Structures are given as C-alpha cells and as structure tokens.
C-alpha cells in the first residue's frame, strides 16, 4: 500500500511540475489564455484562447516539447541511475560511472571538432553511439577481467573497468579539445553543461522508442534486482542467472542514459540522487524504486528546467547548475527529514 501511495504521489508531482512548467516562461504568455489553449487541445473540448498565432507557436512548438523532453530525459537518467545502483549493489553509482558520460562526451566532441561539415545534427547520434560504446567496452573489459576472480567479485571489477574506460575516454576528449579551435572548445563546453534549450518534438520522437524499450526492460527486472541485492549465490540458488540479469539491466540502462544524453548533453546529479529519494519514500525494494525514480526524476528535471529558463528570464541558466544548486540542498533536506524512516 505504501508503494501505491508513493507512486500516486510521484505521479501527481510530475503532473504538477509539467503544468507549472507549461504555464510560465520568458514569452510572458497570459497563464489563463495558455491554460485555455492547452485545454482546447483535449479532444471534444473547445475553448477560445486569446493567444496570437505567434504565442501559440511559442507554446506548442517551443515550450511544450521542452517540458516533455525534460520529463523524458529526467526519467531516463533517474531510472538508469537506480538500475545501475541495483546491479552494482552500490548507492554511489550512476550512469556516468560506467563510461557512459565519458563516451558520450567523446562522441559529441569528435562530432563537433571533426565532423562539423555534417552540421549540428551529427552531435546527438555521435553522443548516443559514444555513450553505448563506452558502456559496452567497460562491460566487456570488466567481464573478461572478472572471469577468473574468486568469490564472484565481478561487480567491483566491472566498476573499476568502468572507471578506467571513463578516464581513458575523458583523456582522449581533453587531448582532442586541447588541439582544436577556440570556437569548438566553447561549443563542446556548452554541450557538456547540458541544455534543453533547443528541444523539439522531433527530438522527443527520436528518443521515445529507446526510452520505451529500456523502461519496459528495466521495470521488468525489479524483482531480480531485489534478489541480486542479497548476493549472487542466493540468486543462483533461486534459479536466477546473475550475469544474465546484470547484462540485461546494464544494457537497458545504458540505452536509457544514451538516449537522454544524446538530446540534452551531460546533466548530472539526477541519476545518482533521485533513486535515494525514491528509497526514502517507499523502501529499498527495486520494484518500487525503479518506477518511482522514473516519475520523480521526470518531475524533478522539469522543475529544474523551469527554474533554468525563468529565474533570469528572459536569459537562461545552464540546467546542470540548477539541478545541483537546487537539488543538493533539497536532497539534504529529504535525507534529514526522513532520517527515522529507513536507511
């Protein structure tokens, strides 16, 4: 019952965040007219709104895709973080640790520095591919290295491999940047900070399939992760294949994070912190942590982006700054206020 209540609360949080986000922005659209224009989109309901065609374009072509993309990105990052924490039985892991962020960063850097002629559209696929390659290489190296390790020490070896691969890829990226023009350095830097400012429906559509596949895969493995938390031996005794579960969840999480990173750049903090909020709300079972992380992460990033584009309006803040500056104190407060609840 606690799980249902928490899920309901998280869903309401996400919807409220999305509504607030849809109603405010630098364009200063009248909130009542904006609400009317939104309600008008619901089938069978017709409401006149005072928005001009330009205002409608701002609302439906610029603001709404940004809200939806923010929700998708936040949800994917948080869910991937929760999945990794489950696989590695380690609360300090997120998708950045297994070579995903470093791979995406290198992919985007290579696209910006060497494939500029292909236009700005080359960056998302390059980041996507780089992210997946980073994880794949880290996983293969880690798996090979842990084959002869006694006591199923595979998890730690995988993490170490991830850290090694991540450092290597970051070093290559630094080398490439150091040898490239100032303009490219600026472009890469902006990308690394993360941003949703160019969100379009096309981006939403392009990552939706990956988001859907990975969400289904990850959510189906909540119970398996709960068993894995006890230990590989116990999992085997129950007829599970720990290695198979691990590779499936890692692959699904890698896909989710890669899709998010491709359209938003590197946005930190969400993946590592949101799963802990979920645990505080409904206990450590991954059957609730995974879906809760998805919903809370989505709502959190939508709110963070709303702040990013309204605090200095009509100027913007980098969203990575907001997620950390607002998210860190909020997280500390949640940790304190739920101290008695659960570890």
């Amino acid at each position, binding site marked *: 019952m606690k799980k249902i209540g928490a899920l309901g609360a998280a869903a309401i949080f996400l919807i409220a965040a999305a509504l607030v986000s849809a109603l405010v*922005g*630098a*364009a*200063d659209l009248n909130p009542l007219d904006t609400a009317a224009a939104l309600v008008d989109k619901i089938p069978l309901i017709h409401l006149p709104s005072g928005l001009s*065609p*330009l*205002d409608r*374009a*701002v609302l*439906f*072509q*610029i*603001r709404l*895709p940004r809200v939806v993309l923010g929700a998708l990105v936040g949800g994917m990052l948080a869910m991937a973080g929760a999945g990794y924490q489950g696989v590695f039985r380690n609360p300090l892991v997120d998708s950045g640790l297994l070579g995903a962020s470093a791979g995406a960063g290198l992919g985007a850097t290579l696209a910006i520095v060497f494939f*500029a*002629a*292909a*236009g*700005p559209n080359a960056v998302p696929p390059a980041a996507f591919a780089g992210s997946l390659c980073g994880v794949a290489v880290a996983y293969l190296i880690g798996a090979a290295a842990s084959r002869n390790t006694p006591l199923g020490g595979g998890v730690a070896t995988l993490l170490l491999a991830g850290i090694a691969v991540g450092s290597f890829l970051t070093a290559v990226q630094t080398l490439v940047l*150091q*040898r490239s*023009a*100032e*303009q*490219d*350095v*600026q*472009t890469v830097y*902006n990308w690394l*900070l993360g*941003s949703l*400012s*160019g969100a*379009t*429906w*096309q981006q939403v559509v392009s990552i939706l399939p990956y988001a859907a596949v990975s969400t289904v895969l990850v959510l189906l493995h909540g119970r398996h992760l709960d068993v894995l938390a006890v230990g590989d031996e116990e999992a085997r005794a129950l007829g599970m294949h720990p290695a198979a579960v691990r590779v499936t969840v890692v692959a699904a999480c890698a896909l989710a994070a890669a899709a998010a990173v491709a359209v938003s750049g590197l946005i930190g903090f969400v993946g590592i912190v949101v799963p802990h909020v979920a645990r505080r709300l409904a206990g450590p079972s991954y059957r609730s942590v995974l879906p809760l992380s998805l919903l809370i992460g989505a709502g959190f990033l939508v709110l963070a982006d709303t702040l990013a*584009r309204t605090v*200095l*309006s*009509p*100027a*913007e*803040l*980098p969203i990575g700054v907001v997620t950390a500056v607002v998210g860190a104190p909020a997280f500390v407060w949640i940790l304190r206020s739920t101290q008695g609840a659960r570890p």
Partner: protein
Amino acid sequence: MKPPSRPGPAAGAIVAIAAAAIALSGCGSASTSSSAAAASTPAAPATSAAAAAFPVTVTGGDGTVTIKSRPARIVSLDPTSTEDLYAVGAGPQVVAVDDDSDYPANAPKTSLSGLTPNIEAIARYNPGLVIASQNTGGLVSGMTKLGVPVLIEPAVSTLDAAYAQIEQVGQATGHAAQAASVTSSMKQRIAADVSKAGTAHKGVTYYWELSANPYYSATSSTFIGQIVGLFGLKNIADAASKPADGGYPELSQEYIVTAKPQIIFLADNQPADGGQSPAVVVKRPGWSGIPAVRNHEVIGLNDDIASRWGPRLPQLVAEIAAAIEQLG
C-alpha cells in the same frame, strides 16, 4: 638578436647600448632595459619613415613593450593579429602563425597554439617579435627570458580600439604609415555604408546569434553590438542582459520568438562554427512567425570576420548594411 639597424640620435644610442648589454649577457633582465627605453624613446614615432622609427615602445594589453629593431621574423598566435599584420604590409616578415589563423590563405600556418602556447616551439622560429591576444601559459615571461618582445593585442570593446590596435601593429613592425592608411580607409568604407543606410531604419530590431542550443547572444554594449548600433538598430538581447553575463546573455528561445526581431544575424552560420545556416534556422519549430524569418531577413554572416576585430570589419559592416537595405 640584431642590433638596431638605424638608431635615432641620442635616445637611440642609449637603447643601442642597452640592447648590446642584453645581447652580451644572453638573457639579461629585459624588463629594466625596456623601461629605460620607454623613458627615453619619443612617445609617438608614428609618421616618420618606417625604418627610422625603431626602437619603438608600444603599450599592449600586457604593458609596454619595446621593439629594438624592425622585426624581420614575426610569429603571430592570434587570427586577428595575423590579419592585422598582413593588412599593414608586414606579411613578408611573418614566419609562423598559429593553428587558428586562416586568413590570408598564404599565411604560414603552423601547429603553434595561441591558447596553450609552447615557448620552446615558438622560440624555434627565432622570432624578433611575437604577437598574441592573450598572455597564457607564461608566454610573456617565457619569451622575455629569451629576449623576444611579446605584444599582447587582446579583444577590443570599441571600434576605435580596433583601429588603434591595427595602427599599433603597424608601429611595432615598421609599417606605421601603411597602417594609418589601412585604418583611414576602413573608417571611410564604414562611414559610407552607414550614411548610405540613412536613418530610415532606426529602431529596427535584431537578434545576433552566437550559438544555438543554448542560444547565446551579444548585447549592444559588446564590440559587435556597437558595430550594428552604428545603424541605429535595436538589439533584443539588451533587455535580457544581466551585469554578470558581460554582455553575452543566454537567451530563452521563447523570448527570441516573442521579441519578434526583424533581422536575425547568424554568427554561428558556417559548418565549423555550429552550422546554423539560414536554411537551418528558418526551419526551427515555432520560428516561422518571426518577422525576420517571414521576410527572409535571416543573414548568415562570415563567422570569422564577425568574431574578429581586424581589417576586414568593413566587410562585416557591408553585410549588415546589405541586410538593412533589403528591408526596403
């Protein structure tokens, strides 16, 4: 190190002695001798014959620099300085330019970096003068130890400062007269374009795009904003700027669209600078209602010229003037 070829009367003699002292001591303290030179050299050698002007003391972005003789070997570590050098006629003296310098095409491009300068690599070209836009990586102190003067010509914030910089590059290289004629012709060309455009378009709004996603712009207080301001246009980024952004605010897309700019200038137009060409920009979702997009006033600029402060500025002004003329 060469002695001064044709030292001036009294002052020159003192400098010649100082120079000889440095030459003898190998890597003497150049700072003392240059301050002595600064005190004794006439402030404005400007219009005299090129060779007679040396030694020359100029005040760059990193303090005064004394160039004892007409530099026969020059290394440029900045694209704007490279353009300045060639414009004032110092091209034949240039032996190496950095990896970002791409104009003129015949400049001797090398792998030298102006962002992370390598003193030894620069020294290998045995320069008599190094010009850069910033003193990073110990450039000035490193080259000074080797007895090589370094002139720092940083990014400028006014058009007058851009002219002054070109003239200074002329003085430092023995081309003062040619530099003066370069700047006066620049001034004429810019004034002609501005007066031709007239005042009919005062108050027309524009958006200057430096990058997309995030959308960085430049306000009218910036160097580039002042140039567009010559035409009396109104910058939509001004309202969004906060002191902390230094005139380069990150704009929200919603704001750009609802500010309805009548002209959009793209300084991120070419593939190497972001590839946000007019064809790409007019297709951005939600942008079709912007007057500039409706009226085909989305202008892809030459990004290099738009991001430098060198002798090709009149070309940038002409691009802006053409966009305004097109408004009809």
